[in-house]
């Protein structure tokens, strides 16, 4: 049921905006002491090696060096650094330091010292003799290869994800609905294509960083730039092999995450140093470390087989994804699922059968992790490109083909865990986008006066809103003196504005001003449990927890007010700034109620509620791009990008728009600029922001974002999610436009000017 809203739906400023714009201290390195130990890691120069000998005595003699740790010093229990709900689907395949080194950049030793110069010197004085092994670099041949990335006996998987370390297998599986082979046999056309995407980096502006100290109670206090305080506590306890009660994790402001900080990356090293030495310690990743030893997107090869009739009816989809998890399995078993679960269901409207199978393999390259889109981005590039190829092959308008086949509101999506498209405005997104973009005019290819070619492309996308039946969001709302509220959350605002949108929801529920809601988060000692900010969960899952907590608090406030008003609780009504008798004869202010709660009171005016959803209602969107392509140089310039998003109710139009624009630009970067290249020894070339080219503001084109909201009954005020879906359309839409301009399909990303100029379609 729709309602008149006062705070939700308003484009209010982010609560922390002005302080951040003024450059006030807010991030890990700004708010923690600098007179602590500097921690750095000696990194493997080899993609695959065993440490034969390691000598730290000379390094230890450098003045100012406090500790040098090697594989001999760490607990021998394997763990995963993936921030996921226990039991984690990611295999337990890591040690803090291991004798076997599995990628260039893998940790060889940890050095802690009084200053950076001493630590840098000690790093150079650690003597290591490596037994250099042949690395396994090609993920296409990794399965059942004779080189094993994880031959160790202590490797184990907590969940049945089809993993087998003796086969370099991190996960494997298959699912289907209907008889695909039979439908293919009956189709007019069957198209088979293979697509390849690389291990793109989140490249958040603040690299990984963590400060650790022992607090007054002898516990390990961790201040980290993380999206997942509660998972971080568990992972650190596993890694250090100490009780979780001994660890306290909090996050200050985060300088961007995009999923990178859904994995523990920097945390374990200073934590280990502090736990061993009792000294405060800090580790700040360099950009180079961030690039070579971070947690990038999973490289994937996606094979799509698509069966259709000549009129453009898409009848069967068979998708196989080979995913490269790199040296360790963080998020390996789960990212791959999205490559099918969030691409195939887009065509629920006409699909008669589908099959989706996957293999996730270990190799000797940087371990992958979570990056906005989380596998959906890779799968959608493949399936949406295949649909564009089909349309062009049949001479049909790809917009019309999509209108004919797309999922519609109310349909059950067999390829999406059999969940319903409970709120779906994908058709309106397409219509609205085609109108705003002027598809009819821009779809035909045009040659400009200077010989450049203008062409257009289109793609659709979906994502989820949290992980069905897994994610837990919680909120705690408390009434204070003067009648203001404190909202405590365990979700992490990483710049996206979740503190603000959850305050908007609180203000809506409590009928107060947004300024009357103070937001606190996230801290494992003080926040109610939340899985953390990932999987597009915060608005939808934590938002519902906020609604529930507000409802419960209102009841308690009414009980206290009824005492003051000397009437039964049932006879009072909550009216925002005051609580009145239903007959209007008397009322008490929130200040009166708050003061009463602090004197001779037995009812805590605080409520904590959790929420978990059995479904994950997908947001939907459509993107259309116009490019200008220079045939001489191969340069592709994005001129205009139109996006229409159905994220359910738009809680804050400004922030939703910025999320969309930011996601589009990351998608443009992935498609046209951001490359990942390993040499034959497994060294990554793109190890700085000089080589790893994220878009500047000259390369985004003009972005035009609008919304076509549906209303999700199970979401807070009808909302779904927006954070991840927005990265998914640029790759297939731009590849489509490049085909229109050149007549060649590019099925590998990024599509660089040299590929275009030389007519090199790669594969």
């Amino acid at each position, binding site marked *: 049921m729709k309602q008149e809203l006062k705070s939700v739906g308003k*484009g209010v*400023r*982010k609560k*922390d*905006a*002005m302080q*951040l*714009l*003024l*450059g*006030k*201290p*807010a*991030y890990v*390195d*700004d708010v923690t002491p*600098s007179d602590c130990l500097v921690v750095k890691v000696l990194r493997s120069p080899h993609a695959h090696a065993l440490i034969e000998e390691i000598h730290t005595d000379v390094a230890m003699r450098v003045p100012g060096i406090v500790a040098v740790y090697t594989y001999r010093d760490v607990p021998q229990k394997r763990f995963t650094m993936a921030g996921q709900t226990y039991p984690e689907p990611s295999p337990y395949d890591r040690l803090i330091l291991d004798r076997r080194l599995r990628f260039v950049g893998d940790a060889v030793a940890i050095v802690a010292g009084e200053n950076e*110069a001493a630590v840098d010197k000690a790093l150079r004085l650690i003597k290591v003799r490596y037994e250099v092994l042949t690395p396994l670099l090609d993920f296409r041949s990794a399965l059942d290869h004779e080189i094993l990335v994880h031959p160790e006996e202590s490797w184990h998987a907590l969940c049945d994800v089809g993993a087998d370390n003796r086969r370099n297998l991190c996960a494997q599986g298959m699912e289907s609905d209907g008889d695909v082979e039979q439908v293919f046999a009956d189709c007019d056309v069957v198209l088979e294509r293979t697509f390849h995407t690389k291990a793109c980096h*989140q*490249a*958040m*502006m*603040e*690299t990984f960083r963590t400060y650790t100290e022992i607090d007054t109670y002898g516990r390990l206090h961790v201040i980290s730039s993380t999206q997942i305080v509660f998972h971080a506590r568990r992972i650190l306890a596993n890694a250090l092999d100490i009780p979780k009660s001994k660890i306290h994790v909090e996050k200050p*402001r*985060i*300088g*961007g*995450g*995009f999923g990178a900080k859904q994995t523990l990356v920097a945390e374990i090293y200073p934590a280990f140093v502090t736990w061993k030495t009792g000294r405060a310690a800090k580790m700040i990743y*360099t*950009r*180079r470390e961030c690039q070579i030893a971070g947690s990038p997107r999973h490289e994937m090869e996606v094979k799509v087989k698509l069966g259709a009739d000549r009129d453009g009816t898409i009848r069967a989809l068979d998708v196989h994804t080979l995913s490269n998890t790199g040296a360790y399995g963080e998020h390996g078993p789960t990212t791959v699922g999205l490559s099918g679960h969030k691409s195939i269901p887009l065509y629920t409207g006409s699909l008669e059968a589908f099959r989706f199978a996957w293999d996730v393999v270990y190799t000797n390259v940087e371990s992958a992790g979570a990056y906005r889109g989380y596998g959906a981005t890779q799968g959608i590039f493949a399936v949406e490109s295949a649909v564009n190829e089909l349309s062009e092959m049949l001479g049909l308008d790809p917009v019309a083909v999509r209108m004919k086949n797309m999922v519609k509101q109310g349909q059950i999506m067999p390829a999406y865990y059999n969940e319903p498209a409970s709120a779906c405005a994908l058709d309106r997104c397409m219509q609205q986008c085609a109108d705003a973009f002027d598809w009819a005019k821009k779809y035909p290819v045009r040659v400009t006066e200077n010989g450049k070619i203008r062409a257009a492309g289109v793609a659709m996308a979906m994502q989820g809103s949290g992980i069905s039946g897994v994610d837990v969001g919680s909120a705690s709302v408390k009434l204070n003196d003067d009648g203001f509220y404190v909202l405590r959350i365990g979700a992490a605002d*990483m*710049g*996206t*504005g979740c503190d603000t949108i959850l305050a908007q929801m609180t203000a809506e529920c409590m009928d107060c001003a947004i300024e009357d809601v103070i937001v606190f988060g996230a801290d494992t000692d003080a926040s109610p449990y939340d899985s953390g900010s990932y999987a597009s969960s915060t608005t939808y899952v934590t938002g519902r927890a906020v609604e529930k907590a507000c409802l419960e608090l209102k009841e308690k406030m009414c009980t206290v007010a009824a005492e003051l008003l000397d009437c039964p609780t049932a006879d009072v009504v909550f009216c925002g700034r005051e609580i009145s008798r239903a007959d209007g004869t008397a009322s008490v202010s929130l200040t009166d109620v708050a003061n009463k709660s602090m004197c001779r009171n037995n009812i805590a005016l605080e409520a904590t509620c959790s929420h978990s959803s059995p479904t994950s209602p997908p947001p939907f969107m459509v993107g259309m791009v116009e490019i200008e392509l220079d045939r001489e140089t191969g340069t592709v310039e994005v001129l205009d990008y139109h996006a229409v998003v159905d994220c359910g109710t738009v809680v*804050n139009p*400004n*922030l939703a*728009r*910025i999320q*969309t*624009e*930011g*996601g*589009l*630009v*990351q998608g443009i970067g992935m498609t046209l600029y951001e490359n990942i290249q390993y040499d034959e020894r497994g060294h990554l070339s793109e190890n*700085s*922001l*000089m080589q790893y080219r*994220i878009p*500047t*503001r*000259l390369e*985004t084109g*003009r*972005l035009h974002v609008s919304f076509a909201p549906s209303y999700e009954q199970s979401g807070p005020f009808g909302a779904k999610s927006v954070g991840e879906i927005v990265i998914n359309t640029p790759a297939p839409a731009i590849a489509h436009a490049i085909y229109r301009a050149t007549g060649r399909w590019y099925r590998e990303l990024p599509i660089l000017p040299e590929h275009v100029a030389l007519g090199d379609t790669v594969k």
Partner: protein
Amino acid sequence: MEITLTLNGNKITASVAPDTVLLDFLREHGCASVKCGCETSGCGLCTVFLDDKPVLSCSVPVVRADGHKVTTLEGLQEEAAEFIGFIADQGAEQCGFCNPGFVMNTIALLRENPDPTDDEIRAYLAGNLCRCSGYEGQTRGIRAYLNAKKEGRL
């Protein structure tokens, strides 16, 4: 070696190692707004003014500031306050980590060219990377500020 410089209006004398870069020196001297994003002069986060000209403090040895004037966002709070509300109204600050460098360079732009076109804004700020916002909101914010100023609404 010993250097003397004027930091945000205050004259300071300090003993520094010859290889200290201005970025580290400034953070050690209470200027937390100055951020490091890349170490390769490629992101613009560490932008400060050396004698009123924007420089990347990650690539300036602090000895080059000896006898000069250095200004960080800490010293330009009022000048920044004039327009940053318009960025906030777009939500284009996002995570905020790139904001100080972007705000510093915007101040430099507006001092140099008080009435820039959108393309001039983009060109001047091209060296200031932002991974969150997609940039367009920042341009809209600056445009809204310039319009408000022209229309006498400030």
